[in-house]
């Protein structure tokens, strides 16, 4: 009896590693034609929606007499000493000061008015056609300032009374310090003093004229010997309480007990309106100055001295057009992520999958890796194209684009692609937990898209809480402009302002996804296939 060798197959033994599992999941994904088509739909949708949002933003300015000729474009935006875009429109009653000196004034009143409408009609003689309504902007400013020169964007240090933030000392547009609180009336005036010693300017205030409090010091390096010293008034865009619409406004202040010390070559106050027709929305014919008596002036002005902000009435783009592109792609990716797992349940393929890979947690992780990476690549392509296209379209339409560093642009594009990839993984986890595609898609949309819709109808406070606590916080990666406490603006998501820092927002979404994945893996291991 002969013994033969048992048959042994020539084929090598297959390995059962994670890489093989990844390849299996990738095969399942790429062989479904409608899913590959929907990936290209994602990229097209991102670009198309961003283009639509950008194309719907125009800016035109009408420099001719009586606003007769309008072209696409915007007035020049001045830049401050640090290179940041600033608003520098105000009325300045000033004279030159050479060397060291100081200026003391008393402010006895600050009143204001605004026009509750976005188009301000002006008659041929320059009178406002729309009647004004009394109202003082929160950050209306009236005080004294030492300016390097009278060009927009020059270095300065100022002490001022404001509409509802008391006395402030501000310098070089971004620095702000608080002085005595309370508003200014005839019975409770404020005394303000600025003292210059070389490059250092110190600000003081007083509520009785005899006891002075130092508010702060400003160091303006490279200040020339001859500077401009004087009184100024300006009034920024006014937001009525509870409203996200802003209107141009003006303010009028009364100064008396004006005392200037130092080398004053002219010894004569000259009134001037700085950058009245610049980028910042101002009321026409608001710049007035009138000498009431010896050392007493009434000055009126409109505009702002501070960092330039964007969105809403300012019309400057803060990159909000990528938001709608991201949301459109997000909805398609939620569907795709949910379908990637729920279609296995519907067709019964899940039993084969778990028979081939009994370690169920690894199966879900492999799916997450596949859909996350594929989605990231597609979204990166779409977002990069959308960013380039929308900036080009906005510039062609004349909108002012805030200068953006290359690092910030890359962060916006890569961050949005990451956000879309992690959102697809979140939808996958929901699909694995619920096993029904309808529920997973609704859950994904409720978690990721609905907070935006709700947030745009709610006031800023509750809307910001939604933007912090829900996975939509991840859209903070698209935020490029900071919130300035000393500038009133509608700091809403639609205008591109997010309550969280970019990576903190993405971390919130990653946290939700990690919890969802963990819960889904736990459920997968406990339940039947």
């Amino acid at each position: 009896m002969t013994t033969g060798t048992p048959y042994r197959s020539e084929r090598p033994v297959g390995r059962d590693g994670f890489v093989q599992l990844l390849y299996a999941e990738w095969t399942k994904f790429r062989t479904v034609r409608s899913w590959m088509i929907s990936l290209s739909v994602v990229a097209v949708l991102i670009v198309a929606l961003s283009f639509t949002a950008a194309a719907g933003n125009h800016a035109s300015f009408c420099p001719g007499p009586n606003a007769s000729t309008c072209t696409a474009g915007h007035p020049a935006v001045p830049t401050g000493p640090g290179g940041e875009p600033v608003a520098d429109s105000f009325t300045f009653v000033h004279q030159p000061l050479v060397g060291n000196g100081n200026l003391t004034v008393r402010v006895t009143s600050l009143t204001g008015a605004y026009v509750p409408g976005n188009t301000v009609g002006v008659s041929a003689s320059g009178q406002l056609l729309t009647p004004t309504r009394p109202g003082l902007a929160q950050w209306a400013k009236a005080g004294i300032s030492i300016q390097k020169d009278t060009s927009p964007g020059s270095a300065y240090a100022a002490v001022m009374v404001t509409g509802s933030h008391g006395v402030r000392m501000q310098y070089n547009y971004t620095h702000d310090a608080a002085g005595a609180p309370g508003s200014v009336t005839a019975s409770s005036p404020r005394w303000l003093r600025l003292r210059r010693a070389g490059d250092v300017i110190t600000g003081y205030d007083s509520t009785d004229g005899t006891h002075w409090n130092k508010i702060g010091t400003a160091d303006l390096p490279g200040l020339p010997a001859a500077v401009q010293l004087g009184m100024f008034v300006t009034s920024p865009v006014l937001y009525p309480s509870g409203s996200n619409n802003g209107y141009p406004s003006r303010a009028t202040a009364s100064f008396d007990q004006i005392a200037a010390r130092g080398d004053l070559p002219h010894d004569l106050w000259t009134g001037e309106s700085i950058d009245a027709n610049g980028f910042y929305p101002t009321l026409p014919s608001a710049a007035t100055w009138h000498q009431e008596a010896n050392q007493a002036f009434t000055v009126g002005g409109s505009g702002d001295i501070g960092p330039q902000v964007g969105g809403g009435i300012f019309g400057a783009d803060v990159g909000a057009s990528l938001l709608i592109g991201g949301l459109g792609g997000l909805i398609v990716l939620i569907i795709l992520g949910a379908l990637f797992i729920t279609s296995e349940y519907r067709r019964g393929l899940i039993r084969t999958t778990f028979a081939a890979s009994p370690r169920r947690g690894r199966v879900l992780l492999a799916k997450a890796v596949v859909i996350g990476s594929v989605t990231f690549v597609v979204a990166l392509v779409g977002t990069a194209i959308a960013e380039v296209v929308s900036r080009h379209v906005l510039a062609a339409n004349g909108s002012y684009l805030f200068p953006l560093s290359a690092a910030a642009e890359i962060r916006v594009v890569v961050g949005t692609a990451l956000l879309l990839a992690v959102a697809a993984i979140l939808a996958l986890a929901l699909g694995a937990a619920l096993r029904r595609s309808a529920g997973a898609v609704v859950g994904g949309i409720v978690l990721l898209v609905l907070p935006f819709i709700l947030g745009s109808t709610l006031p800023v406070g509750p809307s910001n809480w939604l933007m912090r606590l829900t996975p939509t916080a991840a859209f903070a990666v698209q935020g490029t402009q900071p919130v300035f406490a000393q500038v009133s603006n509608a700091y809403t998501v639609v205008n591109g302002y997010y309550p969280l820092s970019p990576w903190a927002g993405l971390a919130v979404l990653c946290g939700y996804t990690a919890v969802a994945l963990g819960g889904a893996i736990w459920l997968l291991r406990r339940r039947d296939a």
Partner: protein
Amino acid sequence: MRDALYAEWTKLRTLTSTGWLLSAAAVLTVGLSAAVVGATGYTSGGPYQDLPKLALTGIDLGQSVIAVLAVLAVSNEYSTGMMRTTLAAVPRRLVVLAAKAVNLVGLTVVAGIVAVGACLFAARLILPGRGFTAAHGYPVLALAHGPIVRAAVGSVLYLVLIALFSLGVATAVRDSATAIGLVLGLLYLFPLLAQLVTDPAWHRHLQQIGPMTAGLAIQATTNLQGLPISPWAGLAVLAAWAGAALIGGGVLLRHRDA
């Protein structure tokens, strides 16, 4: 037709998810409305608030649940293979679609009346405590007032049209996830896109053609001149969307395989 109606009613009432979805629609509508109304306080000098529209804010959330119900009424049949049985029993396919539509309209009207009534009642209780009293120029919410009746009836009609729109889209697309994504995307992305464009003409047109933005114009009771579209015209725009979806779905249902 009567048999088809009764068959569709049987299919809907024997699914527990139908009851849960209808209750969830009503509860979420009232919950969101109460939360929004409770968070709004009277500020003197502020703009005049449209209180009935504020009270009906919950419809924004409830409409998504009604859309899911309508989509599932069709997509569940396709995913389980039941559609072949249905079409074998009722070969006239448009009768099937009409029977589903009639049943969904009936269920949505009931849920809508409950939800809208509860919203207005809750607002009537909460708003005086938030400072919106007659002394400040805000009369108590009462259904005797014409524009409020229009807002209430219009909101129920709005939900009905959303259900019909979702039914049409789901019949055309057949897959539940895709249909829900498509419906919710069309509903929720138009208002956001409209907010992001500053050009006044585009802004206005986007709000006039968007299903949710046009349809919700019916809820406005004050400042009608400031609306992008008048109330009934807005509802007609949504009816056009629903009609187009139903026609598209019906044509595809007739000409495709089951």
